[in-house]
């Protein structure tokens, strides 16, 4: 078990709603961004002098720009439906981590400055001045929201606390109080092209290495091209796919699928990052600037299609926002949606019977699937609502013999966040990450006990990194988290592949 200087929650056979412990997580706050990390994003380097006034002005500006913010701050009736839905509340017991508790940190300021009732009767409606303490509370608790939208599923008005956290972070950035992790990363993308700061030569090296590995393994020359002008498909994938386990096994899988499909494809050094942390900090301007890189790469490389690799929030920005931020995409092939998810791409090929699998290659695993929050509740795959749940499962079923879902209350639209989303995947928030993972760990633990599950597949770089780090705190192994396209990679039989022995009649898969 990993060592912790805080109490790791116990996993129970049934979900329990904890009693409140006010202030339990008041000490949790991520490192503040230094001036160097603020400047490139267009934010002041440190807390500005007239911060209070400027924060209120900014709030007014956002209220006029985002209907969500305005309507959500007005509409909450304090019914309580969302109170037990946030994984951070369930894991930390802190009432400010109940979604409505978190919203109220902003709502009390909104009421004070923007509503009649709050101006004249602040005590009556729980309104409060924007004091230094309130700002500190904001910094702490708006960085304890992974923007997973679970609360919005259960709210009678669809109030999405993620929208409020994003607005709060934008307001704090605008007065010089930024979060180091997010803002430093965004700066790296501007400067180098990806979150991890991997320069072009390093990427080329890695990809060459992958080509060699796959050749040694299969005897087939699968290519992992980068910056190849005129390729049909531009693949945009989270930079974690270039180097870390289990991410890179997923990248190997994408390459094999493209190879079997017989389409030309390429990565891009300029757009070597699918993630878009501009969303986490609620900054339309930065989110747009990051998204534009993909447009620029698509134009420069003269591609016809764009496909995204496995990443949750990246897919939200890609599916839901890319057309808005960087469209229109009229210069791409109109026969395909822009962008496509790699799972949609693979699933289509499976349905056309173009991929052959040897499922027994995954027989050392009994799988379950973690629905990533941004894929589940903020995007879609395929042409029917809910395709985002069915398509990855269909791929797993096509490539594995043993698959079991976790409890219904913890998957699909009700899925629990991994605990590390929304710009919180940083070591200075380890306690929060471990505690926030509790509901997911509990459901995993139960399905391990009941069905003998050994591995959990995911389609998100943040989920994979978070679980790799957090599983050991719960007495599990970090290798238990795998990529969906790792399963594809294991089972896929490449044309002309030399195979050790040959018994298996391969299943060219039934439409799942």
């Amino acid at each position, binding site marked *: 078990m990993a060592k912790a200087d805080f109490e790791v929650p116990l996993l129970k056979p049934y979900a329990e*709603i904890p*009693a*409140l412990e*006010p202030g339990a997580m008041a000490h949790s706050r991520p490192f503040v961004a230094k001036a160097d990390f603020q400047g490139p994003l267009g934010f002041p380097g440190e807390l500005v002098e007239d911060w209070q006034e400027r924060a209120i002005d900014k709030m007014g500006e956002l*209220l006029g*720009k*985002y*209907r*969500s913010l*305005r*309507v*959500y701050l*007005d*509409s909450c*009736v*304090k*019914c*309580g*439906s*969302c*109170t037990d839905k946030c994984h951070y509340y369930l894991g930390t017991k802190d009432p400010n981590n*109940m979604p409505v508790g978190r919203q*109220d940190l902003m709502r009390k300021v909104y009421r004070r400055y923007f*509503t*009649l*009732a709050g101006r004249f009767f602040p005590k*009556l*409606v*729980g309104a409060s001045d924007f004091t230094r303490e309130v700002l500190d509370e904001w910094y702490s608790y708006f960085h304890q929201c992974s923007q997973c*939208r679970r609360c*919005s*599923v*259960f*709210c*009678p*008005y*669809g*109030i*999405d606390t993620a*929208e409020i956290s994003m607005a709060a972070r934008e307001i704090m950035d605008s007065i010089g109080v930024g979060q180091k992790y997010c803002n430093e990363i965004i700066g790296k993308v501007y400067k180098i092209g990806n979150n991890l700061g991997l320069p072009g030569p390093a990427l080329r090296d890695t990809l060459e290495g992958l080509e060699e590995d796959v050749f040694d393994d299969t005897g087939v020359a699968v290519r992992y091209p980068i910056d190849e002008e005129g390729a049909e498909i531009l693949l945009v994938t989270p930079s974690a796919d270039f180097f870390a386990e289990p991410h890179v096994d997923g990248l190997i899988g994408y390459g094999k699928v493209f190879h079997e499909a017989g389409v030309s494809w390429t990565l891009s050094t300029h757009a070597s990052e699918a993630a878009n942390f501009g969303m986490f900090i609620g900054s*339309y301007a930065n989110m*747009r600037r990051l998204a534009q890189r993909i447009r620029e790469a698509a134009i420069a490389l003269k591609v016809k299609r764009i496909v995204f690799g496995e990443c949750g929030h990246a897919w939200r920005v890609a*599916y*839901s*926002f890319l*057309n*808005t931020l960087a469209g*229109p995409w009229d210069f791409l092939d109109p026969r395909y*949606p822009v*962008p496509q998810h790699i799972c949609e791409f693979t699933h289509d090929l499976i349905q056309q019977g173009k991929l052959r699998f040897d499922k027994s290659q995954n027989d050392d695993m009994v799988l379950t699937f973690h629905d990533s929050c941004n894929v589940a*509740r*903020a*995007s*879609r795959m395929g*042409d*029917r*609502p809910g395709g*985002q*749940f069915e398509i990855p499962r269909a791929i797993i079923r096509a490539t594995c013999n043993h698959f079991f879902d976790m409890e219904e209350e913890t998957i699909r*639209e009700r899925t629990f966040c991994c605990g590390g989303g929304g710009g919180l995947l940083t070591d200075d928030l380890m306690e929060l990450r471990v505690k926030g993972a509790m509901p997911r760990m509990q459901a995993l633990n139960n399905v391990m006990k009941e069905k003998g599950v050994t591995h959990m597949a995911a389609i998100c770089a943040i989920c994979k990194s978070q679980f790799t780090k957090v599983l050991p705190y719960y007495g599990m192994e970090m290798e238990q988290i795998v990529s969906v396209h790792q399963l594809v990679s294991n089972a896929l039989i490449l044309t002309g592949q030399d195979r050790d022995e040959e018994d298996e009649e391969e299943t060219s898969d039934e439409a799942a």
Partner: protein
Amino acid sequence: MSFLSGFYASLYYVAVVILIAGLVNKIVQYARTPAPLKIPTTPAPTSSGKVTLRMVREVVFFESLFKGNKWIWIFGWVFHFGLFLVTLRHLRYFIDPVWLPITFIQPFGIYGGIAMVVGLAGLWARRVLVDRVRYITSPSDHLILLLLLLIGLSGLSMKFAAHTDIVAVKNFFFGLYQLQVNPLPSDPLLLLHLLLVAVLMIIFPYSKLLHAPGLFFSPSRNQVDNPREKRHIVPWAERLEQE
């Protein structure tokens, strides 16, 4: 004209103006505020027809609340459905001739009144007993429940205990249509009932009661899930493209 009738007449003029002006103002504000990004909570409908169905399910059945918490749903739905029936029943004081359907639901309106009170009591009990709900409650949340409960109870007592002169009440409100103050019966229960209803109308646009129009403007519920097919862009975001 007695002082009392005069006072209530002016009160209702003021209340109606505040209610309507306040609500129109809010609705215009919501409608004018752009929603720059596609943020429906998915899985979401892929056509506007299906979005309408989603909204109907939310408004009529409180679908999301049902997913979230069965107790709040039961009490909340009973209260709102009761309130709805009661409101319909009350229409007979404000229209003449009374439409047939309104005549028809008169007896059910009474059950509505009872349902409303029961629902409110349940919601209030949760507010006091469940620690999470207690934590998020401000004094105004209690006061609104108290207000609605008193409206319901004073109304029901006029039905079951101390009747008032309904014809005179109707006459009073019809007089207001013509800027004319007819005498209002001075039964204390009636006066309390009418006073509280006026207060409810006045606070409506300035309180959480805005959830009623708010629901219709909630982007996570009313947006169509079609971002890849149709480019969604609002004017302020479009201006960034010209820079």
